[in-house]
């Protein structure tokens, strides 16, 4: 079964016909050649496929493309402006927030979405008191980024990169 959908990816419009089984991740990578989001587990467990969907961070491997007809998707590659790295991506480079780099586009999108959530004063599992304003401690960064695994174990530098980008 097929469906024709429109996706707005990193500022460009794409009309495409997909099998209804196609995930947003596969539509991006295999149909549109947008390879910045990566496939790690394909089951929502690792965060490598994280993109911003209508501005919110989501895992694209558990989203069906047909269910997001007309959606605006931003990938890590699309965060750059006028050839300049996004401040969060820049901080990952400055702090060696990666080794092989496979998890990095997902980490960067997740961090960008996460910082928006903090700006909106969303609490997390480790936030002390649900009525207090959120202070982005390292513990908060770790908890909020726990949906992004790094097989190379670059966590210490990832936390440092996000801490700096948050300033």
């Amino acid at each position: 079964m097929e469906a024709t959908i429109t996706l707005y990816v990193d500022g460009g419009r794409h009309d495409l016909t997909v099998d209804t089984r196609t995930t947003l991740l596969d539509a991006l990578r295999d149909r549109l050649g947008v390879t910045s989001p990566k496939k790690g587990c394909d089951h929502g467990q690792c965060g490598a496929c994280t993109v911003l969907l209508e501005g919110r961070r989501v895992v694209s491997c558990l989203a069906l493309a047909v269910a997001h007809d007309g959606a605006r998707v931003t990938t890590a590659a699309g965060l750059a402006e006028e050839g300049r790295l996004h401040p969060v991506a820049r901080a990952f480079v400055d702090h060696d927030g990666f080794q092989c780099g496979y998890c990095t586009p997902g980490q960067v999108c997740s961090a960008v979405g996460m910082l928006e959530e903090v700006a909106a004063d969303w609490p997390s599992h480790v936030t002390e008191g649900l009525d207090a304003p959120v202070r982005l401690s390292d513990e908060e960064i770790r908890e909020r980024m726990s949906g992004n695994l790094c097989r190379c174990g670059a966590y210490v530098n990832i936390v440092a990169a996000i801490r700096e980008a948050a300033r």
Partner: protein
Amino acid sequence: MKPFDYSRPAEASAAVAAVAGDPGAAYIGGGTNLVDRMKLGVTEPTTLVDVRNLLSDRIEELPDGRIRVGGAVPNSDLAAHPEVRRRFPVLSQALLAGASGQLRNVATTGGNLLQRTRCVYFQNRAMPCNKREPGTGCSAVEGYGRYNAVLGASEHCVATHPSDMAVAMTALGARAHVLGPAGERTVDLPGLHRLPGAEPERDTVLEHGDLITAVDLPHLPLALRSTYRKVRNRASYAFALVSVAAALDVVDGTVVDARVAFGGLAHAPWRAHRAEEALRGGPATEEAFREAGRVELADADTGPDNAFKVPMAVNTLALVLRGLTDEEAR
């Protein structure tokens, strides 16, 4: 994955008609559980009816003090809502203890309630499982048992319910609004999720085609002092081994009222009526809290892999109730 038709009806009644009239049809909310199961071949719908844009994504305060949560409200939004944080901390905390930021942004209220067990044999098509294929047997009884139920299980299924949110809603006594082929009705928690008995394939009392349109949180001042504690294999991003949702009212060292529900212990979120009964009118002491836990778990049926859950549940309950008592004293 098997091919399927996809539709996105504009009206709830059309969605219900589409699913009720087709045994191969399923609703899809955020898809974070359903799509996962479809990839595993554990669930093979031939038609998906998308209700995410159809159901309300609003959280409304009703004139009588209840809060109505639309069926499509994302878990993140529910957890962050100022009135939910203030009036039902247990619910915010339960949501924030579940899954990851990315998943909570997508997961819906209706889908979270109806997510299916994470039993490893249920998720593995190569293994017998009565829940997935009735009559084939239960691989977990003799197999990997760390997550198995200790209360209310049957010889047919020993799986546990995975939702954190549902445990908080079970403690609060939330009410689900359901639209079915015969019209609207409400189903209260506890009471939505069922014990396995001889029909482990049925997780809830809902029938095929029933749509959860909203969930009401009651007017419950007791919940102002409530909390959720989840014990898991690692500090974040893992399902519960044991969890406790509790609300407590202590006056002059005496428990006036209490609400307790456990996660990780049973096929359904487990409302601890016996523990509540034991607590009410008694002293707010460590020993009384432990005794209430022991009373609730008196009938626990354990094996070598999951016997740890009994002391873990008693200890966690005591910890949570002591924390709420100290909070009250401040």
